């Protein structure tokens, strides 16, 4: 019997038995706990620029990752070589790796209890994106770039599409067996206008390759990319001659996609319990939060309620079970401005007295260990609206669509740039502004929020490029947001 070929979308008996065989070998070698995770990820990616298809890439990566605890320490080995002998060798190596850690172990790993499950979970798909013809996908992207190019003064028109399907099978020595299939789709367009000094860009529906969700091709059709091409191209060209964002302290209104990244960087990462406990100290950094801050620290104004919700249907950060076999959950992280809860794992939750992981451990591939990752970290809707926020602002700036982000290693001092902004004067939008950015400190910033848009303006924005860990991993997460308003923010930070 051989390894899988082609693009597997369903588990077969061979793969289940191979995965379970890894557990048996790890246990025989001395593991007191083990989980083995088979993952096959199929992808398709199409890039077009200026009516030329720049690249079409298809493929599948498949392998097994074996994580063990032996003598109280973690070990992990992952292999793409799916012959039985290779997987068995990887299982034994994982145990040897764990034992190599023991001389430097301060306290043995203890995992929070978790119910044993034997189940399957599949993300919702109306139209299988891999069944849509490549010709149709190419035509959609080429048409979008053509419409952008028809705008006078535009320099470059780009369009892209990414599709993934992850089929996984997790087996644990606790007895859990979990099979999941998650289909993810995303696409976007970008218009660039260039002069001697600057590159100005506008993107739709979002920057960094667009808008992503746990959905099928229906998600891409709903974007209506070609219909928005001329508008963003015109805005990119207009930005070249727009006045620069002034350097002032002012009222700032952010659109929902920009707020998604603001939530990501200044709430999503600081609430990761591995960062709080120092496990990422040398690389991504730590957090300004401490375990004692739960229920005590004011994180923002009473407008700010944040959830970590892996159960939102169709959201990019949703799943049935995490890669430790913990069911997807929904937790309130910040309630009316007061910090309540971290996102955790089976190892870290007991370290701060929590009885159960809230299910956020995910690995980007079969070849890396699960880490605490954001699920869907959401700023819950308020009662205002974008129109109301602008109409009740005498003097301010409205910024849209992320272009740049940076934050310190404890997640305090941040600076974000957006693609475009407009002045707000006497309750109305005024001139377009180029090179907008703003800076602040996390708690000060969230405390300055005096309005959040309502449910009708609330949506979930996928962030497919969250980096963390060594070896580096890229997670697909999401953030539900509506536009919001902040007072007294420093804008226009120039070099």
């Amino acid at each position, binding site marked *: 019997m051989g390894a899988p070929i082609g693009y597997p979308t369903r588990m077969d008996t061979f793969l289940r038995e191979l995965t379970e065989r890894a557990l048996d070998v790890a246990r025989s070698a001395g593991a007191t706990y083990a989980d083995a995770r088979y993952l096959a990820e199929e992808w398709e990616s199409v890039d077009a620029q200026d009516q030329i298809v720049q*690249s079409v890439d298809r493929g599948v990566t498949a392998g097994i990752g074996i994580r063990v605890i032996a003598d109280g320490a973690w070990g992990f080995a992952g292999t793409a070589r799916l012959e039985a002998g290779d997987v068995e060798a990887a299982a034994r190596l994982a145990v040897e790796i764990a034992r190599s850690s023991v001389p430097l172990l301060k306290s043995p790993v203890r995992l929070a209890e978790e119910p044993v499950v034997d189940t399957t979970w599949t993300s919702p798909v109306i139209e299988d994106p891999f069944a849509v013809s490549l010709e149709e996908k190419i035509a959609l992207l080429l048409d979008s770039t053509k419409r952008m190019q028809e705008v006078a003064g535009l320099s470059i028109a780009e369009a892209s599409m990414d599709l993934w399907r992850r089929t996984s099978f997790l087996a644990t020595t606790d007895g859990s067996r979990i099979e999941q299939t998650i289909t993810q789709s995303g696409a976007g367009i970008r218009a660039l206008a260039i002069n001697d000094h600057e590159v100005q860009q506008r993107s739709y529906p979002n920057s960094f390759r667009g808008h992503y969700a746990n959905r099928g091709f229906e998600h891409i059709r709903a974007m209506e990319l070609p219909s928005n091409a001329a508008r963003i191209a015109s805005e990119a060209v207009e930005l070249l001659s727009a006045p620069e964002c002034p350097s002032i302290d002012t009222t700032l209104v952010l659109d929902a996609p920009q707020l998604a990244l603001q939530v990501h960087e200044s709430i999503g990462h600081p609430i990761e319990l591995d960062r709080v406990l120092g496990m990422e100290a040398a690389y991504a950094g730590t957090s300004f939060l401490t375990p004692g801050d739960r229920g005590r620290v004011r994180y923002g104004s009473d407008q700010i309620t944040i959830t970590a919700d892996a159960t939102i249907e169709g959201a990019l950060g949703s799943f049935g079970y995490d890669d430790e076999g913990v069911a997807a959950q929904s937790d309130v992280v910040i309630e009316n401005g007061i910090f309540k809860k971290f996102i955790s794992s089976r190892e870290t939750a007991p370290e701060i007295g929590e009885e159960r992981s809230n299910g956020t451990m995910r690995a980007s591939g079969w070849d890396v260990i699960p880490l605490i990752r954001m699920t869907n970290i959401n700023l819950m809707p308020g009662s205002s609206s974008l129109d109301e926020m602008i109409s009740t602002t005498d003097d301010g700036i409205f910024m849209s669509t992320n272009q740049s982000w*940076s934050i310190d290693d404890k997640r305090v001092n941040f600076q974000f740039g957006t693609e475009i902004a407009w002045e707000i004067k006497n309750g109305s939008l005024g001139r377009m502004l180029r090179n907008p950015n703003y800076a602040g400190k996390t708690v000060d910033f969230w405390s300055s929020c005096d309005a959040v848009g309502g449910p009708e303006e609330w949506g979930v924005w996928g962030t497919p490029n969250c980096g963390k860990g060594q070896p580096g991993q890229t997670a697909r997460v999401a953030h539900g947001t509506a536009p919001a308003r902040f007072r007294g923010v420093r804008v226009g930070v120039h070099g």
Partner: protein
Amino acid sequence: MTVKGGGPLGEERMREIAAGALKAKADAVHVLIFHSWGGLTRFASSQIHQNTWREDLEIRVMAVADGARIGVAATHSLDPAAVAKATEDALAVARVSPPNPEFPGLAPPASAPAKSGFDAATASTSPAERADYVARALAEFQADMTGAGYVESVADEVLVTNSLGLSMFGATTHAGLSVMAMTGDSSGVAEIIEPRLSAIDPVAIAQRAVSKADRGRNPQPIDAGRYTVVLEPAASSTLMQFMGYLGFGAKAFLEERSFMSGKIGERLCSDLITIVDDPLGAESLGLPFDFEGTPAQRVTLIDRGTARDVVWDRTTAQKVKRDSTGHGLPPPNSSGPFPLNLRMEPGSSSLDELIASTERGLLITRFHYSNVVNEKEAVLTGMTRDGTFLIENGTLKHGVNNLRYTQNAIEALSNVEGVGDSTEISSELFFGGSRAPALKIHDFNFSSATTH
């Protein structure tokens, strides 16, 4: 007993794997095979908390139909049936893709310069050996300090072959050690990346990190503003790596998105600055050929302050009727060529001399989470971390709270007053490694401060 993991496939085996794909009924076929294995041991709170090993391989097939219709498909399985499926898929994609008028054709057969970058001992490093590096580093720590970081040992094999008869094979290894020492209110970091693990001295690296953390105790707040800075090699590398990302590739150059566009032959920055991309250098980690199968060249990007060239692949070179410099990325590639082995040439001053010549300024160990503010002008922003010190009258006075810089990188390199006499390879959050010396720069702009 030691369990063996990984091990080379070797050129012959990789050519056998590629042979099936090369027989495809296409106008032309290009095959890339990557094979990688190795371990990474992370430590935090002075104990090993994540300890991993992996072996991956990828067979990437590019098929050409009707002269210029291109399709690419990949598999991570050695199974001949999986390789055949990837080949079929690549051809199927090619047949329905519009012709690409920019396709330059496949690379002709050529010989790559000789380069030996594979160390068998590094490739077969055991978990116990990596753990020993951690133990020896932590043994240098003061009683109240905790440590975090990683030890890594990795081996790679790459085969590039095509239906025109091209075949190039390379094998490399690299090893890295990063040590971060933390007290209650300070931290210090030191990192080293080398082709061989045996070249890494964990004691020396740990002592550097410990010394920084110790000297940085009781950090003082400091106002944002313009300062003379002494950037240690890791911080210099960040500026250079972002310049590489933004402007040293020919696609951005031709699209006039680069700070190099229209500037070739013009003075760009201080004549103390020379930047090259040098995959062939004995100290670089690079292969002597690129992923299109073009022999790699050393390219001088900035020569004593003057813009000289960017790096080219076959597509961009064809547009201006010149040759590729051997900087192509794996197909399909919509990003253009990229400098993967940047080096800023050393100067004549020691780090101590750069500090001693500074009346008032800041010593920066490394930057954190840098990003682009203005693409074409190469304006960057990011934070300092793990060892930021006030310099007064030529000596380190005390540690300071970290600062945010918002600075034009070209302007910074125009304000260079001194260049360190040695270089180090450093990694950056968003990129791989590059080699740079320390730099002394006046009027470096810090736009705000943080709380620690």
